[in-house]
C-alpha cells in the first residue's frame, strides 16, 4: 500500500515537472490609429500560423500578448516592452512596425534574457544594436537595390529619385542611387519632399524637366502614395514614357484598389506579393484572409509575422521552453525554410532574412481586382545595407 502511494506520488510529481508551460510572446505594433491596418496584418499572420500549426510546441503552449504603439513612439514602445518582460514574463518580444520603436527596445534584451523577432521595421542597422535581434521582414536596401539593376537592364541611362524626407525615404534614395551608379547609370537629380506634401504637380514638372527616363519614388504607404501616383498620371508622365519605379511599399495590396487603373504598369521590387504562386502561399493566404476578416486588407506585414512565428517556435523547440535568449538565437542562425514568399534563410552573420526579391508589375486580374504580378526573381538576396554602411 505504502509503495502504491509512493508510486502515485512519484508519478504525480513527474507529470508536474514535465507539465506544459505557457510561453508568452509579447507583440508590439500599431493596432489602432492611422497605421492600424499594418497591426491587423501582424495579427492576421500570427493567427494564420497558429491556425495552421496549433498553439503547442511540444508540451508547451504559446500565448500571444498584444501591445499597441499607434505611431512611432520609442519611449512608449520601450515602456511597454519593459512591462511585457518584467510584469507579464514574456520569453519573446516580436512585432515592431517602426524602426525607432524597435531601436528603443534593443538595450533591454540582454538584461531581460529575451530574443526579439522583428516582423517589419526595415532600417538595416537595427540588427547591429543587439546580438539577440532576428529579423524576418526585409530592409529598404534589400528591396530598393534590385530596382536599380532592373532599370539598367531595361536600358535606363538617366533616372531621377523622388522620396519623402524621412529615414526610410533617404535610405531608399541612397540604395537606389548607389546601386544605379555602380551599374553605370546617372541619377540626374534627387528630390526630397516633406512628409506632409500633398500637391505633387510641381514635383512632376521637375521630373519632366530633368530629362530622366525613369523616376524612382519612395513614400510611406497610404493616402500620400495615392496622390503621388495620381499626379504622375495626370501630369502626363506616363504618356511621356517616363517609367515609374519603386520598392513594393508603394503598391501594398491594401492600397491597390484605391490606386485603381492609375497604377497599372508600375514596376516595383519587393519580397512578397499576395499573388505569389506556390502551394505554401495559397495555404497561407487562405488562412490569413480568414483571420483578417476583410481579404482586401491583407498585405506584406502578415508574411513577416507568419515567418516570425515560425522562427519563434523553432527557438522554443531548441530551448525546450526554458528561457535562454542566446541559445534560442543561436538555434535559428542559418535556419532555412520554405516561406509563403519563397525560399528563405536566416543569415548567421547578420541575423537578417536572406530571401528572393521579385520584380513585379501592377496588373488587372480576371476578377477585376488589381495585383502585383511577379515577372522576375532576384534569388537569395542578402541585405546590402549593412555592407554599405561599413
Amino acid at each position, binding site marked *: 500500500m505504502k509503495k502504491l502511494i509512493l508510486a502515485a506520488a512519484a508519478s504525480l510529481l513527474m507529470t508536474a515537472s514535465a507539465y506544459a508551460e505557457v510561453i508568452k510572446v509579447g507583440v508590439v505594433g500599431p*493596432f*489602432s*490609429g492611422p497605421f*492600424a491596418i499594418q*497591426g491587423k496584418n501582424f495579427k492576421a499572420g500570427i493567427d494564420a500560423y497558429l491556425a495552421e500549426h496549433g498553439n503547442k510546441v511540444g508540451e508547451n503552449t504559446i500565448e500571444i500578448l*498584444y*501591445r*499597441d504603439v*499607434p*505611431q*512611432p*513612439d*520609442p*519611449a*512608449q514602445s*520601450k*515602456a511597454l516592452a*519593459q*512591462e511585457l*518582460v*518584467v*510584469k507579464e514574463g514574456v520569453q519573446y518580444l516580436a512585432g515592431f512596425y517602426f*524602426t*525607432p520603436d524597435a*531601436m*528603443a527596445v*534593443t*538595450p*533591454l534584451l540582454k*538584461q*531581460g534574457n529575451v530574443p526579439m523577432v522583428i516582423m517589419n521595421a526595415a*532600417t538595416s*542597422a537595427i540588427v547591429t*544594436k543587439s546580438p539577440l535581434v532576428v529579423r524576418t521582414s526585409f530592409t529598404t536596401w534589400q528591396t530598393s537595390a534590385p530596382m536599380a539593376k532592373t532599370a539598367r537592364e531595361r536600358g535606363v541611362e538617366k533616372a531621377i529619385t523622388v522620396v519623402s*524626407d*524621412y*529615414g*526610410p525615404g*533617404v535610405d531608399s534614395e541612397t540604395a537606389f542611387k548607389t546601386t544605379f551608379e555602380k551599374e553605370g547609370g546617372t541619377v540626374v537629380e534627387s528630390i526630397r519632399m*516633406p512628409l506632409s506634401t500633398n500637391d505633387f504637380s510641381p514635383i512632376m514638372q521637375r521630373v519632366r524637366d530633368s530629362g530622366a527616363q525613369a523616376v524612382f519614388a519612395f513614400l510611406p504607404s497610404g493616402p500620400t502614395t495615392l496622390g503621388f501616383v495620381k499626379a504622375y498620371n495626370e501630369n502626363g508622365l506616363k504618356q511621356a514614357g517616363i517609367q515609374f519605379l519603386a520598392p513594393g511599399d508603394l503598391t501594398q495590396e491594401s492600397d491597390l484598389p484605391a490606386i485603381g487603373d492609375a497604377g497599372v504598369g508600375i514596376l516595383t521590387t519587393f519580397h512578397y506579393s499576395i499573388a505569389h504562386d506556390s502551394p505554401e502561399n495559397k495555404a497561407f493566404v487562405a488562412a490569413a484572409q480568414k483571420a483578417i476578416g476583410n481579404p482586401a486588407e491583407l498585405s506584406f506585414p502578415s508574411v513577416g509575422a507568419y515567418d516570425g512565428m515560425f522562427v519563434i517556435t523553432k527557438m522554443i523547440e531548441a530551448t525546450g521552453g526554458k528561457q535562454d535568449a542566446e541559445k534560442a538565437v543561436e538555434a535559428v542562425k542559418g535556419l532555412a525554410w520554405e516561406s509563403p514568399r519563397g525560399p528563405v534563410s536566416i543569415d548567421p552573420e547578420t541575423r537578417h532574412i536572406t530571401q528572393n526579391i521579385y520584380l513585379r508589375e501592377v496588373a488587372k486580374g480576371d476578377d477585376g481586382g488589381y495585383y502585383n504580378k511577379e515577372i522576375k526573381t532576384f534569388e537569395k538576396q542578402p541585405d546590402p545595407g549593412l555592407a554599405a554602411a561599413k
Partner: protein
Amino acid sequence: MSITNTSATIIQPLPAASSNWLRDLVGIAIILAAAIVGYFLFPNNLALLTRMIAIMLFVLSLDLVTGYCGVATLGHAALFGAGAYAAGIAAAHFGVTEPITMIAIGAVGGAVAGLVSGVVILRGHGLAQLVLSIAIIHLFHEAANKASNYTGGSDGLAGITPDPILGLFEFDLWGRTAYVFGIVLLIVIFVLLRILVRSPFGLLCRGIRQDPVRVSAMGASVKRTLIKMYVISGVVAGIGGAFNAVSTQVVGLDSLSFTNSAEALVMLVLGGVGTLFGALIGTIVFIGVEDFVSAANPFHWLTIVGALLIAVVLFAPKGLYGTAAALVERYRKGGK
C-alpha cells in the same frame, strides 16, 4: 480663454502664510506617499510610472504658461523635446553620460527653446497665438528631422547610456533607479514651483492672466514677465524631457510632435488648469487609464479614452482636481 476668465474669477485674498506652508507639507507628504504606494503596489509597472513622472514635469511646465499666465499654446512639446534632444545629443555624441549633468543640459536646452518660442508666441494674442504655437512645434519637428546626423531623424536617437547615478545606482531593467530618481526630481521641482507661484512674480503672472491692461497700467512689463515665465517653464519642461531621455535611453521625433503638445493640454484640462496638483492628477489619470484600456483592448481603446474625456469636460468642467476642490469648499461652507 483669458477673456472669459476675467469676469468670472475674483482675486482671492491671500490666506495666512503659515497655513500655506502647512498645506504644502501635506501636499509633499501626499506625493511621497503616492510614490511609495506606487513602488510597492506596482513593482512591475515602474517603467510606466517613470514615464508618468516625465510627463508630469512636462504638464507642470505647461500649467505655468497656460494655467498661470493664460497663454494658449499647442506647441509646448518644443520645450520638452528640446530638453530631451539636448540631453540625448550630449550623451550620444559628446560622451556626457553623467545623469545629473544630462538633466542640467536638458534644463538649459529647454530654457533656450522656451526663450525662442516665448518671444515668437507672445507676439500674437488669442487665435493668432495658438496658430504661432502650432507653427513653432512644426518648425522644431522639421529641424530635428533634417538634422538627422545629430538627432537620428525619424529613426530616433539611440545609444544613450547614462552612467550610474552618483556612480552608485545603476539603471536597471525594472526601472527602480529611474523611478526613485524621478520622484526626487519631481518633489524638488514641485517645491520650487510652489514657492514660485506664490511669490510676487507668480502673483504678477496671475494678474496678467486676469487683466493684462491693468497690470501694464500699474507699471509692470507684461511681455517681459511672460517671457521670464516662459523661460522658467522651459527649464521645467527641459528637465522632464532630459529625464525621459535618461530613463528610456532613446529620444524620438514624437517628443517634438504636435500630438505630444495636444495630449499634455488634454491632461492639464483633465486635472484642472491653474493648479499644480491638477497637472499631476491629470497626468496620472490620463496615462493610467490609457495604459489600462490599451492593454485590455489594444484595438479599440482610443474610443474609450475619448468617451472619458467628453464625460470629464461635460460633468467636471474645472477638471478633476478643480471640481473636487470646489466640492470640498462647498461642503465646508455648508458645515459652517
